[in-house]
């Protein structure tokens, strides 16, 4: 499964990459420095979106590079170097996230909408206010959304992060997590519904 082309890859050149790989395999220090300097900013951004702490994000990138250095001999250019590193970094970040026991996780079932025997909403959904556009209010809302995402059970938080925030395809998320594409699809939908429930008290209109 190929990752979508990202702007950072626009300058990608197959010949240059093959030459860089040859120098890396030969243990050329300058080549390693080029690799690390070129890819760290983007990989760090990837890790930051999965991990809330900056230290953890930097650790994940470092661990990803160390794994990549070890696996370099087994990499034969099946994918672009950037795609390969991106994948290793996502895995490293997810592993680190798993090792962090998060507090305040909510039970997903309690966050799902409830229906009566006739299939109607038990509690009528509220009409939401238009999210504020003023800078300060927008930042406050952004903080609220992040805290709410943190309250989701880990399995749901992870798929939401990868699918809606990192914007990976369902298939790619399935590959990363070792689950079926259908399981990812169901989890994303449930995660969105749960997040909606968590945001509801803050966004419901005055008529609710």
């Amino acid at each position, binding site marked *: 499964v190929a990752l979508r082309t*990202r*702007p*950072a890859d626009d300058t990608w050149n197959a010949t240059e990459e093959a030459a860089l790989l040859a120098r890396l395999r030969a243990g050329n*220090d300058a080549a*390693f*420095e080029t690799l*690390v*300097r070129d890819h*760290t*900013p*983007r990989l*760090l*951004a990837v890790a*930051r*979106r999965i991990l809330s702490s900056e230290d953890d994000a*930097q650790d994940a*990138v*470092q661990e990803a*590079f*160390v794994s990549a*250095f*070890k696996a370099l001999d087994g990499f034969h250019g099946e994918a672009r170097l950037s795609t390969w590193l991106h994948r290793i970094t996502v895995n490293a970040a997810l592993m680190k996230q798993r090792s962090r026991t998060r507090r305040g996780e909510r039970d997903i079932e309690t966050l799902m*909408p409830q*229906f*009566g*025997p*006739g*299939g*109607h*909403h038990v509690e*009528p*959904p*509220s*009409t*939401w206010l238009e*999210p504020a556009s003023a*800078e300060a209010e*927008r930042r406050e*809302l*952004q903080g609220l*959304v*992040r805290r709410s*995402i943190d309250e989701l059970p880990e399995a749901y938080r992870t798929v*939401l992060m990868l699918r*809606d*925030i990192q*914007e990976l395809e369902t298939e790619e998320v399935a590959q990363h997590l070792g689950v079926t594409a259908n399981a990812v*699809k169901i989890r*994303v*939908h449930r995660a*969105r*519904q749960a*997040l*909606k429930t968590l*945001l*509801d008290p803050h*966004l419901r209109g005055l008529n609710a």
Partner: protein
Amino acid sequence: MNCKGYYAILRDYMEGEVSAAQRTELEQHVSECKACSAFHKLAYEISCRELTEFLDDYVDGRLSPERRAVFDRHLEICTECKDYVAGYKTTIELGKSAYSDPDEPAEPTFMIAPESLVRAILAARKKK
């Protein structure tokens, strides 16, 4: 029963919370009133539960045109689902923008890596 009476108890009727007499009265009205009969058919085409269950397919554009039309018809008459769908869409957008910094470009292509991190990675390679 008139049309107003029909709408007043429709929800309870669908939830099975009406008396036998009310049920007969409602069904009698539906069979006689063209407008309520059409509405009644639509109201039963898909339940709120079913619509919610497949809402991701609707929002992400994965439904067939026929199925999509069924969802659209339900949303025309059901304000509860209309509110739910609007909130669901807003949630997706808020999630997407939760980690974007309006002061930074969307893709941090030109971002500079922290020098300490670059040094640590290169040092870790020497240690392996």
